[in-house]
């Protein structure tokens, strides 16, 4: 067991190093998109942890991402903490909010929980317009600066800020997946699966269902907060428009496309979310379509994919394929 854990850690390390090296050989646009994928991977993983393994629904993770983004930016701007500390503060703040929300969520289920979290996603970002310290619609600037000189020197000079963002996001994403993967194999993971599978049986086995759900909500929120802080870093600012209802739906869509119980699928889900606008833009440009078409087509295609996934592979394409070949595990 210990050996396999070390092996898995080594694989994660190798993938991480490969991606960081690969960033030297691709266009800066792809580096930026790679960072976007990494941010989505964390956000989708937070949904997978919550929905796929603990059986709770959230349509408001965009709001928790907003809390993470704003907390990181505010602590960086006003307390002048190092940017890594600001990410931790962002993540912790979202965890606290998630804990409070989780207390309510533990008493709710199905559409009631979906409705509660949805209301949060609608209402929370607009708070920025009520308090001047949050910068209103214009938002707050969040510029973490360039990579340290020693990294730029070691990697051969042209180390752009986007490459630095890619490094940070990728390391965070890989660490997140590794963390969740291990967590799911632990006592907590087994507890969540038991609660998701049959709450009554789990309760009879001595599992504190409420506690288990609150813990899952808190951890999921912490990850959403981290992805929000990273998103703010990528954008260079935090503003209500960065955390719209569309974002909440987008990450849920990514999770469904990935398969809500499939952690590695979060990479595919995140890639799909980034690749689709790219492809539709290329097609619209090629066909001489208007700017409005290329702006709206990705949403249409993603929605269609979502409907098709729900209709034909409700557990995600990967599990659907497994089921077809006779191994649903």
């Amino acid at each position, binding site marked *: 067991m210990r050996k396999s854990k070390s092996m898995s850690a080594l694989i994660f390390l190798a993938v991480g190093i490969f991606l960081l090296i690969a960033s030297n*050989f*691709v*266009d*800066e*646009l*792809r580096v*930026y*998109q*790679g960072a976007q994928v990494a941010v989505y991977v964390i956000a989708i993983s937070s949904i997978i942890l919550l929905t796929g393994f603990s059986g709770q629904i959230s349509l408001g993770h965009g709001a928790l991402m907003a809390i993470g983004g704003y907390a990181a930016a505010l602590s960086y701007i006003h307390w002048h903490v190092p940017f890594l500390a600001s990410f931790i503060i962002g993540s912790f703040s979202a965890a606290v909010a998630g804990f409070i929300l989780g207390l309510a969520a533990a008493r709710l289920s199905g559409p009631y929980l979906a409705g509660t979290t949805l209301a949060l996603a609608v209402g929370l970002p607009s708070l920025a*317009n009520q308090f001047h310290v949050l910068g*209103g*619609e*214009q*938002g707050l*600037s969040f*510029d973490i600066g360039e990579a340290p000189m020693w990294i730029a020197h070691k990697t051969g000079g042209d180390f*752009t*800020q986007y490459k630095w963002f890619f490094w940070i996001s990728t390391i965070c994403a890989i660490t997140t997946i590794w963390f969740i993967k291990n967590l799911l194999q632990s006592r907590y993971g087994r507890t969540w699966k038991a609660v998701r599978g049959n709450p009554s049986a789990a309760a009879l086995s001595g599992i504190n269902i409420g506690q288990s759900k609150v813990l899952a909500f808190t951890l999921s929120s912490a990850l959403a907060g981290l992805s929000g802080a990273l998103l703010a870093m990528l*954008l*260079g*600012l935090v*503003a209500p*428009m*960065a955390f719209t209802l569309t974002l909440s739906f987008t990450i849920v869509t990514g999770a469904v496309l990935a398969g809500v119980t499939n952690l*590695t*699928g979060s*990479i*595919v889900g995140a*890639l799909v979310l980034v*690749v689709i606008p*790219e492809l539709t*833009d*290329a097609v619209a440009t090629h066909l001489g379509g208007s*700017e*409005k078409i290329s*702006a709206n087509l990705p949403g249409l295609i993603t929605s269609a994919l979502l409907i098709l996934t729900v209709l034909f592979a409700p557990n995600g394409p*990967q599990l659907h*394929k*497994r089921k077809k*070949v*006779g*191994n649903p*595990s």
Partner: protein
Amino acid sequence: MLVRRSTKRGVFAVAIAAVSALAVSALPAQAFSPHSEIGVTSSTIKLGITVPLTGSAAPGYNKVPYAMKAYFDYVNDNGGVNGRKIQLVIKDDAYSPILAKSVTNDLILKDKVFALVGTLGTANNEATTKFINDKGVPRLFVNTGFSGFANTKKYPTTYPLFPSYFMEAKAIGGYLADKFAGKKVALLYQDDDFGIDALAGFAQVGTTFVAKIPYASGSQADPTVIGKWVTSIAASGADTVVLFGVSTATAAALGGAYKAGLAGKIQWILGSVGADPTTIKTLAPTALPLLNGAITASFLPSASDSADEYVKQFQSINVTYGKGATFDNNVLVGMNGAMLTVQALRAAGTKLTRAGLMAAIESQGSKFASAGFAPLGWSKTSHVGYNGYWFGRMAADTTVTPVDGAGKYVLYTTDSSSGPIVKSAIARPAMPAKGLPTN
């Protein structure tokens, strides 16, 4: 187990294939370009613009990029710029700084534009500044009057065209003191750097308001918000109201005031950004009676003044290339910015470089022909464009004529600091023949 492994491999294969596809598609453009500068080939110059084509601020402003494109098409059909045709890549930012950041990334990294022109919105331009500075991309003739953009250290590649909101507020403040002394004045303003710049200008000339009503950008789409504005205006007892927001906010405020029975009870003064009569007429037709007699501040001639040689020429181009767009302030702004862009590109010579373009504006920009009544101030030490406004009065048919009478434009010039407001004579270069620069 075997199946599980092969499925996992499948997932990774899909991921790697997608990443590889993205990476490979990133390679071409630059490697095969015969010209060394990004966005320039022997036959084309690629420019980019971000504007709200959708969302709460889109009405009116969504005409600006197409007016620019119409003018560029006209120039292209007449030989282009030193033999190169201008391509304009238009991106929708929905008036959101976040989206502006995203589409500017695309313009610079994916579309690989040579320069940005006419990018619209104070907050939007601020949001993209860091990246633009890092890449050294010239940002010409931005469609915003935030005074901060003239700071050459903070915005080294940005060239504002509009007189600043600070200057505009000073000019309006001075006009209020002169013509509306003793009146109770209220102010509605956009609560971001756009409006804050204006507040500083009003404070500079000591204008006092019986009510200052801020609004969050985008909130003008909410009827309850508009109701609060009107209630605040009525409660303040104001008899004169300055509207310092975007066109959709002006239309919303006038529409709300009409419903509340304030028609004929208030003298409206419209800031230049939100004073396009065509847009207001379209958005709030009921507000038309309120526009009769409204005072507007402008730096370009009235779009309805066909006697003006610039307006006349642009109207003519719009007929052929404007695809049926009604000629208004937005079309005038777009074409004027496009004509200045053509002159800047011509001044930069045949060996186009980003640095050369900026140097050309700094050395020759003050002599460029443009519709604006105030002189252009670009130099090696200043990025300030126009510096003055004139005041007009709107008629029932929404045409605007100078307050002193048709054709009698009086210019008030000032700075974005404590300088005086000076009544200045109008002096501008003549419109180039057929509207085609020859500099």
